[in-house]
C-alpha cells in the first residue's frame, strides 16, 4: 500500500483522489491551505450574491471523506524534498509520500501595477478572496464604487456580484471588446451590450495606470493610462487572468516554467511526482489547446487520467473535443469544438453568425472553408447537447449537416421557442451573399 499525497483540494485533486480510491487501496491524503473540505470554486460568486451558503457549495457531505478513507490535512506546504519524498509544512510539520500529485491551482495575475498590493485590491479566486471582498465591498455604503481591471470570465462575474449588491461598477477592459481574444466580434459585441444593459460602466480599450492609496494604505482611486482620468473607488478587483500557483516549489528540484512542467503522462521531471489541473504546464501542446488550461473541466479530466497512472495503468492525458461554458449576467454560453476570435482565427476558418432580435441569443458556427467541415460552435442563450456535438465533431460532419440537424442538439427546457429554422435561413442567406 502506497501513500499518495495530493496537494490541493480543488476539482483536480479531489477527482484524482476519488478515482484512486475506486481503483486501489492506497493511503490517500489531500493537503490544502485554503479550506477544510472541497468546495466548488465556481460557486463562490453565488455565496456573495446570496443564492447559496458556503455549505451549499460543498459537493460532498463531510462524512464522505472518512467513509472513503481519504485523509484531509489542512496546512501550507513550503518545501518539497523530493530526495527523501517529504513535504515540509509552514508550521514545521512534515509528511512522507510515495507518490505526490501537485494540484495547487492558480493565483490571480498581477502585472506590477503601482498600488496593486493595497488593502481593498484583490483578485477573486479563493475562499479568502471572498472573505476579503466581504470586508471591502459588503454594501454600497462601505464601497461607493468598485473598479474591475481585466475583461475575462472572472471579471464579468465579479461585476455581476458587485452589481447584485447595488455597488456601482466601472469595468476596465484592455481589449477593444469584451473577451474578444477568444470570442468572435459579433459574440463579443452582444456581451458588451449585456454588460451595459446591467448598468455597468464598461470602458473598452482602457488600461490601468496605477492604483492610488489613501493615508491608511487602502485604495482611494485608480488612474486610467490613456486619459489620465482618476476614478474614486473603494475596491479594485484584479481579474486579468490567473497563473499557476507554484511559488512553494521554488526551492525544490521540480522543474517549472510558468507552471509545473509535465509530459503527456502528467509526469514532472522527478519520478513519482505528478502535476494536474491549473498548475500543470504541458511541455508539448495538445491540439489547439494552450499549454496551461485553467478550466474546471480539464482539471477534472486530468484527475481522472492521473488516477489511472498512479494505480498502474500508465496512460497519457488525451482530452477529447474541446468544450467549455460560462454565464455572462443572464446569458448562458456554451462552446463545442473550436471557434476563434478575430486575432487567433486560422486562415481556413470561416464563420456563420446568427443573432436573435432580442439581442440575448446568438450562435457562431465555424467551418473549414475548403471542405465545409464543421469545426465548432459558440452558443449564447440557447442550450445545446454536449453529446450530440461531441459525436458530430468525431464524425467530422459538414457544416450543412450540422445546420440542418441543429434541432437534435437543442437542450433548452421544454416549451421554449425553437430558432433552428431562422438560424438555417440566416446562414443560407449568408452563404449566398458571401
Amino acid at each position, binding site marked *: 500500500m502506497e501513500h499518495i499525497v495530493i496537494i490541493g483540494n480543488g476539482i483536480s485533486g479531489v477527482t484524482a483522489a476519488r478515482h484512486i480510491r475506486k481503483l486501489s487501496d492506497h493511503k490517500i491524503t489531500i493537503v490544502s491551505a485554503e479550506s477544510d473540505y472541497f468546495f466548488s470554486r465556481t460557486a463562490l460568486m453565488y455565496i456573495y450574491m*446570496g443564492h447559496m*451558503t458556503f455549505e451549499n457549495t460543498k459537493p460532498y*457531505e463531510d462524512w464522505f471523506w472518512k467513509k472513503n478513507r481519504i485523509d484531509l490535512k489542512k496546512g501550507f506546504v513550503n518545501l518539497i524534498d523530493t530526495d527523501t519524498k517529504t513535504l515540509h509544512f509552514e508550521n514545521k510539520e512534515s509528511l512522507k509520500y510515495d507518490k505526490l500529485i501537485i494540484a495547487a491551482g492558480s493565483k490571480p495575475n498581477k502585472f506590477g501595477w503601482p498600488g496593486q498590493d493595497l488593502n481593498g485590491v484583490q483578485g477573486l479566486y479563493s475562499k479568502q478572496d471572498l472573505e476579503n471582498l466581504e*470586508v471591502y465591498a459588503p*454594501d454600497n455604503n462601505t464601497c461607493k464604487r468598485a473598479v474591475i481591471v481585466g475583461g475575462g470570465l472572472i471579471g464579468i462575474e465579479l461585476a455581476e456580484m458587485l452589481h447584485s449588491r447595488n455597488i456601482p461598477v466601472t469595468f476596465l477592459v484592455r481589449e477593444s471588446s469584451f473577451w474578444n481574444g477568444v470570442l468572435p466580434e459579433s459574440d463579443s459585441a452582444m456581451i458588451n451590450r449585456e454588460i451595459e444593459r446591467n448598468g455597468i460602466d464598461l470602458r473598452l480599450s482602457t488600461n490601468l495606470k496605477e492604483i492610488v492609496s489613501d493615508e491608511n494604505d487602502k485604495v482611494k482611486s485608480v488612474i486610467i493610462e490613456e486619459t489620465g482620468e482618476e476614478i474614486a473607488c473603494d475596491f479594485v478587483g484584479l481579474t486579468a487572468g490567473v497563473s499557476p500557483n507554484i511559488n512553494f516549489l521554488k526551492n525544490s528540484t521540480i522543474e517549472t516554467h510558468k507552471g509545473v512542467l509535465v509530459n503527456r503522462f502528467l509526469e514532472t521531471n522527478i519520478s513519482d511526482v505528478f502535476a494536474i489541473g491549473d498548475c500543470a504546464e504541458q511541455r508539448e501542446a495538445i491540439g489547439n489547446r494552450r499549454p496551461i488550461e485553467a478550466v474546471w473541466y480539464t482539471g477534472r479530466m486530468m484527475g481522472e*487520467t492521473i488516477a489511472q497512472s498512479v494505480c498502474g495503468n500508465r*496512460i497519457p492525458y488525451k482530452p477529447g473535443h474541446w468544450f467549455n461554458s460560462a454565464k455572462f449576467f443572464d446569458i448562458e454560453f456554451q462552446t463545442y469544438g473550436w471557434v476563434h476570435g478575430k486575432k487567433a482565427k486560422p486562415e481556413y476558418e470561416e464563420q456563420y453568425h446568427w443573432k436573435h432580435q432580442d439581442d440575448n441569443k446568438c450562435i457562431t458556427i465555424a467551418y473549414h472553408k475548403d471542405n465545409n467541415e464543421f469545426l465548432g460552435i459558440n452558443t449564447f442563450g440557447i442550450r445545446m447537447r454536449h453529446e450530440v456535438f461531441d459525436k458530430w465533431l468525431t464524425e467530422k460532419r459538414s457544416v450543412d449537416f450540422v445546420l440542418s440537424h441543429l434541432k437534435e442538439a437543442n437542450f433548452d427546457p421544454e416549451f*421554449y421557442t425553437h430558432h433552428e429554422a431562422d438560424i438555417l435561413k440566416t446562414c443560407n442567406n449568408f452563404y449566398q451573399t458571401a
Partner: protein
Amino acid sequence: MSNKLNYSLSIATPDGYKNTPRQKAIILTGVVGLFVLVLTLFNLDTFSGLALYTSLSLICLSISSYAIDLYVSKPEGIKNNGVWFKSISSRGLYGWLTGVVLTLFYIVLYFYPQYLGLNLNGGANTGLIAFFDPLSRLLSGNPASQWFVYGTLYTIAILAFGFKFLLKYRHNRYEQLRTYSVMFFQLAFAFLIPEFMARLNSDTFSLPYYDLKNIWPLNYYNFEQYRVDSMISAGDVGLAILIFGIASIFIITPILTYKYGKRWYCSWVCGCGGLAETAGDPFRHLSDKRQFAWKIERWVIHSVLVFVVLMTTAVVHSYLEADTSKYWLTKDVFLILVASFLTLIFVLTMIFKRHELGKDARYGAIGYFIIIMVLFAMHYVSNSNIFLFQAETLRSTYGFLIGSIFSGVIGTGFYPIFGSRVWCRFGCPMAAILGFQQRLFSKFRITTNGGQCISCGNCSTYCEMGIDVRAYAQKGENIVRSSCVGCGICSAVCPRGVLKLENDSMKGRINSKEILLGNDVDLMDLVNQK
C-alpha cells in the same frame, strides 16, 4: 480570522437587501387587508360584503404590486439575489414569526374552529367565518364554513403568489405554463366547481363535496361510507363520479405518470403542490439536502402509504355486507381483491425491476409486504376486528395524524423553516405511489448534459424536494428519483445549461458514468464499460 470575516460568510443581512420605502408601503397595504380579517374575530358586527371584498382585494393588490416592483424593472433571468440574506427566507426572525403564525392558524383551523367563529351547536356562525358568508352565498348559496374560509384564502394565495412566480420566471415557458396550470386547477377544480356542484344539491339529489383532481390516497376519505352512499344514491352522475374516482388512481394516474412522470400531478395539478410552488417558492432552498434526510424520507413516506392502504381497506371492509345475496362485492371478495392487487404489484416489481432497486428499497418492500399479509392472515384467524384495530379508530387516527397534523400544521405551517415541500416529500401517500412508478415505470428523467457540470450546487440548493441533483449531474448521470416533482427549477437555475427535464425512452434512462464526456475516448470506454 477575525470575527468580521466569519460574520460575512455567515448568513447575515448585508445592506442592499432591505425593502425600499415603496415596497414597505405595498406590504403595509396587505397588512391592512389581513388586519381587517383579524378584526372580524372580535365580532364587531359592523362588516359588510364590501369589507370582505375590500380586504381580499387589498391582499391581492399588495402581493401583485410587490411582485411587479420586485421583478418588472429588472432584466429577465434568475432572481435569487439575497435569498440567503433576507430574514423571511433564511430562517431569520420574520421567517420564524411567519412559521409560528401559520402553524397557530392551522391548529385553530383544524382543532378549534370555534375561535374562528364556527357555531358548534349548528346555529349561525360569527366572526371570521360569518365574514365570508357573502362570497359563499354568491357561489354555493350556502353560508360559509371554516373550510370555505380556508379554501378562499388558499386560492388567493395560489393566484397572487402564482402571479409573482410568473413574473419571476417570465423568461421560462415551462415554469409559466406549469404555473398557469396550478392556478387554473386550484381556482376551477378545487374552489369554484365544488361550490357550484353544491348548488345542484336538493332534497332528492345530493353529491358530496368533491374536488375532482383530489385523488385517493391524497383524498384519503374519498371512499368512506357516507360519500360512497351519497354518490351511489345520486344516480348516473354520482356513479360516474365514483367511477372517475376509482379510475383516477388505477387507470388515469398510471398512464400519465408513465408518459410524463409524476410532475403531471405534483407540479401541474395538485393543490398542495400548487401552494408549494407559488406561496412556498421563496422557501424552496430550505429543504434538507443531507443523505440522512433522504433515508428518513423513504421510511416515513412509505409508512404513510401502508397506513392509508390499511386504513382505507379497513374502512371499506367495515361497511360492506358479509353475504353475497345483496351485492357481489362482499367483505371477503374485497379483501381478496386488495390482497391480489398488492401481490400482483409486488411480484411484477420483483421480477422486472429487482436490479434497479437499491438494497434497502427491496428490504422495505419485502418488509411491508409481509406486514400486510400477516395482518390479512390475522383477520381470517380472529375474524373480529380487521387489522387488529377498529376501522373507525384507524380512520380517525389517520385523519388526525396525517390529514391534519402532517399535511396542514407541519406541511404548510413550517414552510419558512423546513421548506415548501415537507408534506409532499415525507408524507404524501399519493406522491409515494406516483414516485414508485416514476422511479420504475416512466419515460421521465432529468437529462444531464455530458460533462458540462461545474458542481456549483445551484440545482441542489434550489431543489424543494431535497434531492442532491448535483451528485448526479457531476457524475454525468441522469436524475431518476421517485421524489422529483418535475418543477424544473434545477434546470432553470443551472448556470451552464446542464439539466433538462424530458420524456424519452425507458432504455438507458439510468446511466451512471465514471469518466465524463470530454475526456480520452479510450479511457471512457475502458472505465465506463465495466
